[in-house]
């Protein structure tokens, strides 16, 4: 069966203005809205579109986290994914460990493509897809805005600093999604009901034989420095005068 494996991460919703705890031990995540990382939602959408085009037969969506991450997996199932896997752990894993988990899943599911978001909007790491590709010894195509799947290869367009780069990669491969790849669909109520009956497998992290990794430790969180309050000017002439007096014009 031709399969696409998609990874999703539960994050603080991107509309939430995140605040640092007063004691510097972390950011406030209690009582805030949690959602699928926006780039991962694009990843799910892309897999579904590929399935609709006939490029694959099954979309499997996987997440790593505590039991209640099933909520986000159910959302992905309601979007149209066929089945879900939760790798359950209370620990926050660094990207290299996440990549190892996805390597195990890739070995088990033998997908033609693993699709991940280009970064998660909480830690902003942008590492997992590339690490998975390295561990799996397969091609990576990161930050993509276009994907065409052929018989045994994929053609992708990547958003790079210089413009748009086209690559050809053999399958299986790992891709990471950029913003302009697609616009994720809205989920309708009947699909939410239907998604409750779709298979969702829970695998304890230990069962995959992946140990924790404590080599990077966060020791303090702080709010960013604030810029001093600025001035308002009335028109373009005052603006030019203000710029000249600051010596920047």
């Amino acid at each position, binding site marked *: 069966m031709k399969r696409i494996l998609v990874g999703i991460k539960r994050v603080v919703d991107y509309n939430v203005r*995140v605040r640092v705890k007063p004691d510097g031990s972390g950011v406030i995540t209690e009582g805030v809205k949690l959602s699928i990382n926006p780039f991962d939602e694009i990843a799910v959408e892309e897999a579904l579109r590929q399935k609709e085009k006939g490029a694959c037969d099954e979309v499997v969506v996987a997440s790593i986290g505590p039991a209640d991450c099933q909520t986000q997996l159910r959302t992905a199932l309601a979007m149209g994914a066929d089945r879900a896997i939760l790798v359950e752990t209370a620990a926050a894993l660094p990207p290299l460990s996440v990549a190892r988990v996805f390597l195990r899943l890739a070995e088990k599911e033998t997908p033609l493509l693993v699709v991940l978001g280009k970064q998660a909007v909480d830690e902003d790491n942008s590492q997992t897809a590339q690490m998975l590709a*390295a561990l799996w010894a397969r091609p990576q195509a990161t930050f993509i805005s276009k994907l065409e799947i052929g018989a045994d290869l994929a053609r992708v367009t990547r958003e790079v600093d210089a413009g748009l780069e086209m690559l050809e990669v053999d399958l299986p491969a790992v891709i990471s999604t950029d913003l302009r790849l697609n616009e994720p669909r809205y989920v309708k109520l009947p699909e939410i009901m239907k998604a409750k009956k779709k298979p969702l497998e829970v695998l304890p992290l230990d069962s995959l034989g992946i140990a924790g990794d404590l080599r990077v430790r966060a020791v303090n969180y702080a709010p960013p420095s604030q810029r001093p309050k600025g001035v308002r000017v009335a028109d373009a002439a005052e603006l030019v005068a203000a710029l000249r007096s600051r010596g920047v014009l």
Partner: protein
Amino acid sequence: MTQVLVVAEHGQGKLSQSTARAVSCALQLPDAAVSVAVFAAEGAAVAAQAARLTGVQRVVLVEDARHAHPLAALIAPQLAELAAGASHVLGQSSTFGRDLMPRVAALLDAPQLSDIAAVESAKRFRRPIYAGNAIVTVEVDAPQLVATVRVASFQPAAVGEGAAPIEAAKPLAVLPTHTRFVSLSTSQSDRPELQSAARVVSGGRAFASAENFQKLYKLADLLGAAVGASRAAVDAGFAPNELQLGQTGKIIAPELYMAFGISGAIQHLTGIKDARTIVAVNKDSEAPIFEVADIGLVGDVFAVLAELERLVGTPPG
């Protein structure tokens, strides 16, 4: 000695300024011995430029026709091999570095830190998370660390008189053939490069069309500035993707940043708030961009642009 290996980013035979900034970050590590690795089809010119950066002790040049267009899958195994003996392997927080370095980290089984913005010690760094809403201090306990450097946070290392030795290297790594470059389309421009420009003017949704967005270029040329855009302007097709600033686009720190018709979502602000002077022009006086602006002007973007063109007059220089 802290052995630091910095990978060079380059294009059209020129070393990118982001490499000089990454070198500057490397030099902040205590007792750093900094080497720069250049991967190119023909890299002599780039290697010579890297060799002249103050503080660089050695340049390692890997020439291979397959590096004519940089591909992470091909560079990573060679860089990982060259990194033996280095405690820190640094790249840039550009699409080049962000693509490459995690692949290197995984091959080395080393942890990676992305977007390091400050060096506290060889083991302790600060980096922004949550679109810059928080700064986390992290401690690393590993013999090897891979990192991308948030280039906007570091001044470029100066170009010196002397030159470090350049060594040709032939890493043994077998290069895969599973990833192939097809083409690169780029909007050619004589304007300064967005990530190193001293002045940047940028536009947002208020421009309403690609044609209107062109109005920004006139002022940019008068100021000798690069042009940037908000995500909204890029999504709407007013501007190409390589102009996007912010959490998921480019992060810049120019002397002057002028935002026209950009509301200032937090995801945008994280890409520009290191600018020395921020100017905001927006018709909505409540737009969040005014919270970070040094100089704010509430008004019609097109009227203000036209007036500025007139006032700024002839191009500098």
